Each structure stands twice: as structure tokens, then as C-alpha cells.
């Protein structure tokens, strides 16, 4: 049992071990719990673990905004402390039906609002590559768990970059799926028109396996659709016939670190060597307006989605008596951290009478422009490449006092998200000893293409996903 190297074992290898009966699911689950016991005191990737869970396949960690029946689900917020859902999120059900036992619930920025997991009401998660640095966010707990050998794979959720960016900062693979392919039923909502659950794992093939389990129409989520084609496990090791576009604005954006840029340039070079056709393209408006529009739409939806936390039916309720509005105010003041409060205020303002057209309405129009711009670029190319994050993992506390600097962490992931497009982040090298993420953007429902390209690059890059200090 102790023979299992959880740092190195991929989910696919774990499944093979179980299939060959060299190991049982229970033993594998226990091996991860042991690793968690050993290393999570330092990383704090988990908010809670599950000692015994249903299923005999490779275990999984779920971001703590995915509802799990009877298992506390807090979304990283004090306002949901002690809340035990009465139902499973559809993705949790699908994992259970696939036999994946639940390892535990991972840390996140409160209500997925943040890019460092420092906004969790339960303390920050640390980056397995350097515990003085953040794992990214908001799915920082899931990313750190996978990178730190505390879970073979995990589910995260991505609104503005919350899967791709922490995957990049922790040196793992993360897929933000096409909007509408994965059910949001049971996912504590942040911004409904952008939220999307996706897999985080050590390899592209693991991501594809997990995506295959969770994707597809769910009658409980009206915004989901059936996948137009089955998900295939990628095998090809070349990129012949693939047209790769390099959007200038995403690659030359202000604030992209030199080391990040260098690693991405090498990956692009590798694409050519693997037989891809590489060309430049432009996305001027998407990159310039993506972030500001995102910060109108996401907080607007959040201000409405977070209205249900009123202390009446579940979760935290302030003590004392008074009018119903006093109860709301005190409950929400005590329960929400600074970032949700900030976004509730931003969103309430943007939706207010007299401002709606100028802000929310305008942002939705720009969103259409962004969608069209990407669509045009993706007519010429099958995949667009850029850095996932402008920087490598930054030190804890370095941006907490400056929300705007924190918001810029997602400047490269937000534009494709606004267009509803899928994006895959794979590690493509190191800068200053820290992982650099490569973002692959595809057309809607082109996950198979992203997996194929990501897998071929992954093979060629030979990136070692085990953090150096843990090897």
C-alpha cells in the first residue's frame, strides 16, 4: 500500500492497477488519505476529508462549492459554515456512478471569487512547488491537491479562469469545458452565465477521462446540451494537420513575465516541430474589453446569486432580534468576506435602474463582439495558444491588499471564457523554478481537438509534474 507513489501516480495508472487487481479502490483511497495526513497540514488543500466513501475506482477530490449530500459544503464562506446539502450536485452523482470515491472537499476563494485561494474564510492553500506562494485560484485547493499528490484528480470550477490559472500555477492540467457541456446543478453559483465545472489532473488523458464522466446534458440544468461527439482519449503524438493561431494581444499583453513568455515561445516552436501550421492572429477587442466586461457581468450575476444567503433557511444566521432587514444585514455582514461584499456592491450598482444599459447591457453587447472576434480567429485556426497566466505563482499576501492587481491574474483566461469557449491549460516549463501554464483555446465543443493537441505537446514537453522539492 505504501508502495503507491501518490505524487507520481496518474488516475489512468491508478485505474489500471485496480483493474489488474494489484490494488483495491479502498487501498488507493487510504493511500491518499495517508498522503493528506502527511502533507496537507502544510498545504491546506482540503477543507475536509471523507474517511470512507462509496466506490471502488480511483478516488476524487471535489472543490467545496460542489454539493455533496450530507457532507458539509461551504464554498469557502463562513455564511455556509455547517451547511450539509440535501442533494448531490449532478457532477458528484456522475463521479459516484462511475465508482469514484470521494476523498474530500478542497479549499477555494470564497464563492470562487479570487485568483489565489487567499479569499477562503478557512485560511489560504499553499502551492506545493513553494509553500510561500499561492496555488492560484479559485480552485487552488483542487490544484494543490493534485500537484501535491493528495488526489489523483479533482474537479474545479472556472468562471474567469479558476481552473486554468491554478492548474498553470501548480504545474498540472486543467480543462475549462465549453459552456453548457457540464451540469451546474448543485454547484454553488457565482456567475451563472460563466460558471463551468471541469477536470484537473496530472495529464491530458486523465482530464479527458474525467471530462467523459461528467459531461453531457442534465435535465436538471436547462443550459446544458448533449455533446455533439464522444470524448476520445488522445493518442497522437504529433500535430500534423493542426492549424495553431497565436493571438498577438494575448501573448504580448502587458504584465506577461519574461520567463512565462519564453516558456510559451518554446512551446509554440515545438508545435511547428510536431507538424502544426502556426500563424499569428489578432483579438484586439477581446483582450482590451474582456476583463472590464467580465467585472460587470460576473459581479452582477453574483449580486443576485448571493441574495439567497439571508439566514432564513440554512447556513449562518446572526444572533439577536430585530426586523427582518436587520437580520439580513447582520447575517450577511458577518457571513460574507470582503471580496463577495465588494462584488455584491459592484453588481448591485451595475444592475441598478439608470445604469443597467450603460454597464450590464453594454457589457453583454461587448460579449457578443468578443464571441464574434474569437469565432473569426477560430475559422482560420483549430487552436489558439497563449500563456494561461501572465505570471508564475506569486507570494502569499503580495496582492491581497490590491484587488485590481489580483483581478489581472485572469486577464488572459477571461476573454475566451466570455466567448463560452473551452480552454485547456497544460504545464509547458519552469520559470524561476515555478511552473508556467500554456493555454489552448478551441472552438465550442472542440474538447477532443484540445485534448489531442494538449496530449501531443505534453508528450513532447516531458514536463515533470512532481514539484521539485517533493521529488
Amino acid at each position, binding site marked *: 500500500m505504501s508502495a503507491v507513489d501518490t505524487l507520481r501516480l496518474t488516475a489512468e495508472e491508478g485505474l489500471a492497477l485496480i483493474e489488474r487487481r494489484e490494488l483495491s479502490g479502498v487501498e488507493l483511497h487510504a493511500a491518499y488519505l495517508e498522503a493528506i495526513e502527511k502533507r496537507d497540514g502544510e498545504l491546506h488543500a482540503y477543507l475536509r476529508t471523507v474517511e470512507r466513501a462509496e466506490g471502488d475506482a480511483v478516488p476524487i477530490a471535489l472543490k467545496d462549492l460542489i454539493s455533496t449530500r450530507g457532507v458539509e459544503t461551504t464554498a469557502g464562506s463562513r455564511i455556509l459554515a455547517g451547511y450539509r*446539502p440535501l442533494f448531490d450536485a449532478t457532477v458528484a452523482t456522475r463521479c459516484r456512478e462511475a465508482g469514484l470515491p470521494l476523498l474530500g472537499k478542497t479549499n477555494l476563494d470564497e464563492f470562487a471569487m479570487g485568483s489565489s485561494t487567499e479569499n477562503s474564510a478557512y485560511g489560504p492553500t499553499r502551492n506545493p512547488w513553494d509553500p510561500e506562494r499561492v496555488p492560484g485560484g479559485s480552485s487552488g485547493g483542487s490544484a494543490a491537491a493534485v500537484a501535491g499528490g493528495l488526489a489523483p484528480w479533482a474537479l474545479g470550477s472556472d468562471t474567469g479562469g479558476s481552473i486554468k490559472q491554478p492548474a498553470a500555477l501548480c504545474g498540472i492540467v486543467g480543462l475549462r469545458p465549453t459552456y453548457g457541456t457540464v451540469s451546474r*446543478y448543485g454547484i454553488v453559483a457565482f456567475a451563472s452565465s460563466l460558471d463551468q465545472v471541469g477536470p484537473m489532473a496530472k495529464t491530458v488523458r486523465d482530464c479527458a477521462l474525467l471530462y467523459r464522466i461528467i459531461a453531457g446534458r442534465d435535465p436538471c440544468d436547462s443550459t446544458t446540451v448533449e455533446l455533439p461527439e464522444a470524448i476520445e482519449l488522445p493518442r497522437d503524438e504529433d500535430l500534423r494537420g493542426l492549424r495553431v493561431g497565436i493571438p498577438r494581444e494575448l501573448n504580448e499583453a502587458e504584465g506577461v513575465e519574461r520567463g512565462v513568455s519564453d516558456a510559451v515561445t518554446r512551446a509554440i516552436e515545438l508545435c511547428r516541430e510536431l507538424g502544426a501550421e502556426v500563424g499569428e492572429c489578432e483579438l484586439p477587442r477581446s483582450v482590451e474589453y474582456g476583463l472590464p466586461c467580465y467585472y460587470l457581468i460576473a459581479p*452582477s450575476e453574483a*449580486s*443576485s446569486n448571493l441574495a439567497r444567503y439571508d439566514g432564513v433557511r*440554512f447556513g449562518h444566521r446572526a444572533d439577536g432580534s430585530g426586523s427582518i432587514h436587520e437580520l439580513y444585514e447582520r447575517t450577511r455582514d458577518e457571513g460574507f468576506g470582503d471580496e463577495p461584499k465588494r462584488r455584491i456592491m459592484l453588481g*448591485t450598482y451595475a444592475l441598478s435602474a439608470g445604469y*443597467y444599459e450603460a454597464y450590464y447591457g453594454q457589457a453583454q453587447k461587448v460579449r457578443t463582439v468578443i464571441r464574434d472576434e474569437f469565432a473569426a480567429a477560430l475559422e482560420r485556426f483549430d487552436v489558439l495558444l497563449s500563456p494561461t497566466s501572465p505570471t508564475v505563482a506569486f507570494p502569499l499576501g503580495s496582492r491581497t491588499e490590491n484587488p485590481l492587481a489580483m483581478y489581472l491574474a485572469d486577464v488572459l483566461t477571461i476573454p475566451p471564457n466570455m466567448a463560452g469557449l473551452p480552454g485547456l491549460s497544460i504545464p509547458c516549463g519552469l520559470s524561476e523554478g515555478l511552473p508556467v501554464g500554456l493555454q489552448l483555446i478551441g472552438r465550442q465543443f472542440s474538447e477532443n481537438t484540445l485534448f489531442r493537441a494538449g496530449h501531443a505537446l505534453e508528450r513532447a514537453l516531458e514536463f515533470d509534474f512532481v514539484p521539485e522539492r517533493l521529488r
Partner: protein
Amino acid sequence: MSWEPVIGLEMHVQLKTRTKMFCRCESGYGAAENKRTCPVCLAHPGALPVPNARAIEWTIKLGLALGCEIAPRSTFHRKNYFYPDNPKGYQISQYDEPLCVGGSLDLPGSGGAARIGITRAHLEEDAAKNVHVGGAEGRITGSSSTLVDFNRGGTPLVEIVSEPDLRSAEDAKRFLQLLRQTVVELGISDAEMEKGSLRFDVNVSVRPAGSGELRTRTELKNMNSFAFAARGIEQEVRRQIEIYESGGQIEQETLHFDPAHESAPPLRSKEEAQDYRYFPEPDLVPVEPPPELVERLRAELPERPSVRLARLREHYGLSAYDAEVLNASPALVALFEGAVAAGAEAKPAANVLANQFAAAGIDPATVDPGELGKLIRARTKIPRSVFDEALAATGEPSFSAERYLGEAAISSSAELEPVVDRVLAANESQVLAFRAGKEGLLGFFVGQVMRETSGKANARIVSELVRRKLAE
């Protein structure tokens, strides 16, 4: 100056679908508090709405019955506000893209039908029910705490908005009745005010008669009957006229009509108006009803009560009263039309059906219209008592008019004359009074003759005989 009321209505109707609007909880009354709830209608984190297809179809049906255009694409919006009966913190409603737009309902009147515009009909979810404890009659004033029953929360609710086309309290009342009847006959709602499955608000303003302007309006809420609505409107119209005539201005406000005091204290004024921060509901996709569906629903529509009413008035020439009494029951109208087709005259047939028949409590669906037509046609030829007896028996499966027609009334003057003479001789003082001009006594003499003949005399012949004799 004479003033003209300008009245528009908003009606809320709960649909009687088996399940709620956005979840699969059972809908309707009768369960213990909070038993018909689930994570969706309790707004648990992550729960998502799934629209009730039946509710959408029924709303389309209603829209078609009101002559609306069915939007090829309509959307749901979130209406944001904090209140304990609103667990999500927003109500899913429709805003600028409702399912049904631009219809009308014809309100037959003495001067022809008035066409009342229907601005829109849209679909939304009902709020839960707040039960205020410790106050009077469950009112919030004076209560010490509030309990919430979420059973009602999420019930499908259709809002119908009329144009400000109504010009009197009476018309408003008749319009409300006709609209209610339309909904009930479509089978989509009980529309019962006592149960709360029908609620409405009235917008009232006044203007100089004949002018086309729309002045500031007030909204009357909380009226629990159509009669109260009419009274509330009349009173509000008077109040506004008085204010204008004394040089004042009307303030836009919501008034809570209190039938006990015939007054309407303000609920909230424009300054306190809520900003609902509407935005498109991102958890739902637009509703795009396929044209085939709309056509199928159109084909399924029963005849509209407004159309039926117009036919009763215009084609059959019935009085407003008779037409409206008959129209309250489609089966009664069908029986009426069958009887007329079988040879009965329209007006007496309507009179019999609207007054005697309805009072007898017979199910019109069980009556053979042909036999009824025969009976009505013969009604002046048989004694009143026999006719009544026959009418009461029309619901029986073996009913045959023939059986009663045999007992024809005494119409022969020769037979009746001696009876008339006897009656006149026995009532000398009345004869004198009649001759002195008290013509109203004619009925008295006829009645006396009827009594003498056990009701078998033909009243028309008797009255002719009496007149002739007294004129001698």
C-alpha cells in the same frame, strides 16, 4: 368640466398544473406547511430551475384565447428583492420579452362591443406565503413574528396586463368577470379569489372627458372581490376628480383598498419605488415555442366566452342580463342554441333558461335541446303549472315534451267567458276602481280567473276577455 375615468387592470392567475413552475414539487392546496418543497423552491445553493412545459403551453393557450401574438422567442428575467417569501432573493418572471403580447378582449355593451386591449400575458412563479403571527387577521401590522410556508412558492402564475381602455367601474368589473371566465373555461386555473388563485390590481386615473391624455395613475391593490373593485374604483375616481377640481395634483402611489372603511390608505409612493434590478435569468434558455405547437394549441381552443357573449347579444338579440347569465355556462349556451334550433324563439328561450332553468338546478348537459325547444315553443299553450312541472323534468333521461303538451291550456273564449263574468261580478269594488283608471288591477282579475281554472286558463285570452268586458 366632466371627467372620464381611465382604468387598466393587472390580473394574476395561478395555473393548476400538477407541479410547480420550476421544480417537480406538487402544486396546489391542502398539504401541511412546507411539505411541498425541495431544494429548488427553497433556493438551496446550487439548485437550478427547470421550466414546466405544461405551464408554458397553458400560457400560450391563454395568449391565443386573448388574441395575443405568441412571441417566437421569449425570455425569463430575474426580479431582485429581499423578502422572506422570496427565498432566492429574486423572482423568476418575464420582463421585456413576454410569451404573449398585444391581444384584446371584446366587452359587449349596449352601444356595441368595446375592444379592451391586452398589453401582454407573461409567466412567472408565485411567492411563498408569509404568515404573520400575533397580529390581527394575519396582517403584518402588530404581529410579533412571521412564519413562512413555502408550499405556494414556485406555483406557476400568469400575469395579464390590460391597456387602460376601460372607462367605468362597471365595465372594469365586467371585464374582470369575462377575463376570469376565459381562464376558467380554458381549464388552466381555478381562478378562485378566496383561494388566492386569482388576484388583481387596478390602475386608475381620470382626465377631462374626450381628451386623449394619460394622467398620473394610482394603483389599487388587495381587492378581494370584483364588487369591491368596482366600489374601490368609483371611490378613487371621485377622490381624483375632487383633487383636480380643487387645483391639486395626483401623486403616483399604491393604495391598499379597505372595503370595511371604503378608503384606500397609501402603501408606498413613487419615491419609495423598488428598483428590481431586472436582468436576463442566466439559468434558463429562451423559450422558443415551435410554430407547430402554437398551431396545435390554437386548434384545441374552446370557444371564447367573449365571442359567445357577442353572439348571444348580436345574433340572438338577447338583453345584456340574459346574455350574461346564459354565458356563465357554456353548456347552458349550447342548450339555448339547441332549443332555438329546434324551433323555440330566442327571447323566451333565453328567459326560461336564464331564470327558471338556472334556478331549478338542472345540469344543462343532461337535457335534450330538441325536447326542450318543443316545450318552450308550446309554453303559452299549456298551463303555467304544467310548464313548470315539465321544465323541472327536462333533465330526466326519458323526458318527452309530448307528454305535457296534451294538457293544453283553456284557450276557448266560450269556455272562459262565464268564468270571467263570475269573477267580475264577485269583485264589484275592483271593477269600479279599474274603470276609474286603476288599470293595474288587470293582473288581479286575470289571477282570479287563473285560480278558478286551477291555472289552466290561457292568460293572454283571459286578459283580452277581461279588458273587453270592462270596456263595455
